[in-house]
């Protein structure tokens, strides 16, 4: 696959790893946060940590769309879905996210009409096919996904579809990063910037990080070499005592983002005064809601939504994991009470969730792995 395979080359990874190792100042520890869950996924899926020196630690950030949905919103969605006239549509990732009484998947098994879609546009197809039902799209995701929801709303409006609406849970990444930067218990040396969000918002929004907090940011692609190169670029900035926003993913991310996408979002959605993030609490101006002009497509206004706040289960330490304070395995219930089969926190649900990524791909003794790899004939490290 073009633009994929060439960025998975092991030889180049060794070269980059050597460069990174060479940049390590003796005795210094480096902590970088990959903001985006897609990066977390790549890191574990490809075993990228095998290439990093001990001194470099990756901290998994809050950029997993599913992980930050608070339980109350899941319950609200479930409440909507349980209306007999409603067909709820949802991305596959969302299906296993636990609300306080089970997931969409459980509700579907119990008879609630919840259907999985690949694209928000599929919801329109379902709406057209079921004119006597109300199709509600469970909109989740960061700025990457919001434009697709926006385009789908514009399309529905153009068609005059009257039975399609959006339960809007889109969130914006910058306030979350800011919240993390402001949290007292975390020391980071730099950020691996979210590549796909940046195709929409561009690189400028990160400048305050470099400027005000003095932390380097490298917007990174999603292949393992992209991430390794970004780490190298961060190390290089640190060694040169620079703190800038750089774009490793320039083949995909334009510096100014996608204006059409931003316009579409702006036309249909506006910032909420505040929104609850799982583990991070309420963050102001951190999420989107449907604009008044599209009230007829706003499920929150069309149907009454209980909107109760549900406290996370006490055992759940997702907040600490999302902030990068705890490693996934350091959560007390990790792997015993909380597993991908029975996720207690949402970080255990999505393949982008730090806990799930670690559990599914990373759960092994790296020292022993390294030995085995060296010995094993099937490997080729």
């Amino acid at each position, binding site marked *: 696959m073009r633009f994929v395979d060439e960025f998975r080359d092991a030889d180049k990874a060794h070269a980059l790893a050597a460069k990174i190792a060479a940049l390590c100042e003796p005795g210094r520890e480096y902590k970088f946060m990959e903001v985006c869950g897609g990066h977390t996924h790549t890191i574990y899926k490809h075993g990228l940590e095998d290439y990093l020196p001990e001194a470099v630690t990756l901290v998994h950030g809050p950029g997993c769309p599913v992980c930050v949905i608070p339980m109350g919103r899941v319950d609200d969605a479930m409440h909507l879905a349980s209306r007999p006239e409603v067909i709820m549509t949802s991305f596959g990732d969302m299906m296993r996210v636990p609300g306080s009484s*089970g997931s969409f998947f459980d*509700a579907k*098994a119990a008879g609630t009409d919840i259907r999985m879609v690949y694209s928000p546009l599929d919801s329109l197809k379902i709406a057209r096919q079921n004119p006597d039902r109300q199709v509600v799209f469970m909109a989740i995701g960061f700025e990457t996904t919001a434009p697709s929801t926006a385009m789908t709303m514009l399309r529905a409006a153009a068609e005059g579809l009257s039975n399609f609406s959006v339960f809007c849970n889109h969130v914006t990444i910058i306030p979350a990063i800011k919240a993390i930067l402001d949290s007292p218990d975390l020391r980071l040396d730099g950020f691996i910037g979210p590549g796909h969000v940046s195709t929409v918002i561009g690189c400028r929004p990160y400048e305050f990080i470099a400027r005000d907090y003095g932390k380097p940011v490298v917007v990174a692609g999603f292949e393992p070499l992209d991430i390794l190169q970004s780490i190298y670029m961060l190390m290089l900035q640190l060694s040169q005592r620079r703190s800038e926003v750089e774009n490793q993913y320039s083949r995909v991310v334009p510096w100014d983002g996608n204006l059409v996408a931003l316009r579409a979002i702006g036309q249909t959605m506006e910032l909420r005064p505040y929104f609850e993030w799982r583990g991070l609490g309420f963050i102001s101006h951190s999420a989107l809601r449907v604009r008044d002009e599209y009230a007829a497509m706003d499920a929150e206004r069309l149907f009454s939504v209980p909107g109760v706040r549900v406290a996370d289960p006490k055992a759940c330490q997702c907040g600490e994991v999302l902030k990068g304070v705890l490693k996934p395995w350091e959560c007390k219930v990790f792997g015993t009470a909380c597993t991908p089969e029975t996720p207690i926190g949402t970080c255990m649900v999505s393949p982008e969730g730090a806990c799930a990524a670690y559990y599914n791909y990373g759960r092994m003794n790296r020292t022993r792995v390294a030995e085995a790899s060296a010995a094993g004939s099937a490997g080729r490290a």
Partner: protein
Amino acid sequence: MTAGSGWISDALREHEHADRPEVPGGRTELPVTDREQQVLDRIDRARRRRPRVREERITMSHGAGGKATQTLIEAVFLDAFRNPLLEPLEDAALFSVAGPRVALTTDSYVVSPLFFPGGNIGDLAVNGTVNDLSVSGATPLYLTAGFILEEGFPVADLTRVVSSMQEAAVAAGVSIVTGDTKVVQRGKADGCYINTAGVGVLLGDISLSVACAQPGDAIIVSGPIGDHGITIMLARGELDIEADIISDTAPLNGLVASLLAAVPGVRAMRDATRGGVATILNEIAKAADVGVLASEDDIPVRDEVRGASELLGIDPMYVACEGRLVAVVPGESAEAAVRAMRGHPLGAGAAVIGEVVADQPGIVRLKTAFGGTRIVDLLVGDPLPRIC
């Protein structure tokens, strides 16, 4: 809705028992890799624990072949059916059979409702296949169990069905040695369908076939007919009819053994299921190209079965049984056969109901209680309640 907040507390309770060696001084004491390794070891122990199905309902995951499927198989099926042949959970069960010939049969069970007075789809699925083997003259030995579950099916119901299967298997002396589970979307099944295939062994040179029926043979039924079918029709509740009647579902291998021991010359046996006794009589007439002459007065039918049949305008002769067999024996052995069957609890109501005759080959006639004669043909269509 599955789970409820209950599952979280459940999971945590279990977690408490995840024999975790306490790190004396808290986590700062050990280097990171050691602490991580301890967590991994704890997870490893948790994973090796006895699997438990946490969901209250079957979800698509239970059929996807992954962890949920494995948990379901181990916690529900293997746990109930446990035997050395099933236990390896390999792609096929391996065993030896001692006997010159092997009998193989299959049936799918789609009964609705799944639970009914006298049984449920589980014992039905075991007994039905045991019976097909038994009436073939085989000693039933091994069963397969293939489940098609509908998304949303309550796990508690599945557990009940499965434990009934095991009880039925134990009662019949057979083992369920291999199985399969598929889950289909909600609305693509009716809770639970079960297929069982069965393997039995024929000892000696017994040779049974309805094609062997000869004029002069007697036709025997092992007990009152139609109990199962009427029970099911009423259990559906749509007809609003109540009656104290229960399904006759039962394994017939014991009864068959008694019969064969007493009357080695038995020509053929069939278990009367869908289509009832009438269908079997027609199968005899057709296969052997003989006439069959039965007597209405001699056919045992319970009052309730008759009452319900009259109300619905259907004929008990066509109503399904699940624990009754029809046997064809030489005329001279009729008495001995009935005696042998009556000596077994499941044959207490055995009776000669007719005879094989030479004339009108292919046709089943019934001497009515009224003293007339009528044809009893294969049923056309379903036995539909009728007004006229």
